């Protein structure tokens, strides 16, 4: 077994610390990649919207690894580093659309207390994305929240520079 940068004493093969850690359960990692990749590959939600929420959730969970990644689909769709730099105070920053603000508000509530989600927070997201889009969006949030905490718990190291 390889030695990871995470505090676990073993690791599997992989390009970065997340892959080397998750590779200790290869079948599970393969199934996770298949699921988590769908949101980007099938463009189930606008990739910029998704990437903003992914990074915001990583900020909230103090997860260095997902914060160090950039999703190519979002970059190709026009998301730049200047906007990402404003994300940690998006509510008082310019350059975020009404839909982005509604989705970020929803994502933050999801992380802090999903049960406390109000109809006022949910309505604009469901209205804009539609039933199928809203389901995909919320599923993606679940992956972002769950696996940024996974990285925090196992102290998965960031990649050296944004890809």
């Amino acid at each position, binding site marked *: 077994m390889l030695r990871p940068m995470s505090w676990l004493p073993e690791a599997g093969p992989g390009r970065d610390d997340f892959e080397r850690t998750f590779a*200790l359960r290869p079948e*599970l990692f393969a199934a996770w990649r*298949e699921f988590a990749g769908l949101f980007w590959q099938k463009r189930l939600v606008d990739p910029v919207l998704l990437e903003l929420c992914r990074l915001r959730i990583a900020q909230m969970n103090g997860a260095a690894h997902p914060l160090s990644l950039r999703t190519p689909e979002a970059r190709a769709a026009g998301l730049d580093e200047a906007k990402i730099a404003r994300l940690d105070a998006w509510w008082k920053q310019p350059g975020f659309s009404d839909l982005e603000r509604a989705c970020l508000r929803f994502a933050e509530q999801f992380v802090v207390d*999903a049960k406390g989600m109000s109809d006022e927070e*949910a309505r604009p997201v469901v209205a804009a994305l539609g*039933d199928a889009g809203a389901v995909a969006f919320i599923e993606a*949030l679940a992956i972002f929240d*769950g696996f940024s*905490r996974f990285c925090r*718990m196992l102290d998965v190291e960031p990649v050296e520079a944004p890809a």
Partner: protein
Amino acid sequence: MSAPRVKPPRSRGSDPISGSALAHQPETLAAFLKLYGTLWSRGVLDQSTKELARIRNARTVDCTICKSIRFEGARKEGLSEALVDQIRDGFEASELSARQKAVLRWTDTFLSGAAEPDAAQRREMLAFFTPAELVELTAGLALFMGFSKIAVSLGGMPESLPVMVQPTPDLPPGA
């Protein structure tokens, strides 16, 4: 019961997952069921340990459906309702084993959103679990938490449900 924010489509499955609004996205639903089946039935960690973490999460997130479900595999491994009753605040003083209490503390750290586990908690977990088991438990927690939050975010959750014993998730046919 509050009104659902997204109603399930007419064409949907009959179990609590595939019968929900998740059926609006058949491709992600199929991929999730494969992932969940792999976690539960193709794992290296015993099912009762995963069930402990799942139920602790369900009670913390307060997902009525998740709280009501018991998986058969964990029941067969001895996770009785008397033990499940002890997965509550104050579990440190319960009759749960040291290993079971370590799993609940790990779950609470995961859910708390606080700092990463300290050196003592890491050592404790490595004393009870192999690295592969620990990865599986933590990935399981990510899925338990994420999907219970989906359920409560979608709304339409009943106030209470009776305990329902369900088959342990396995790979869907053809997966």
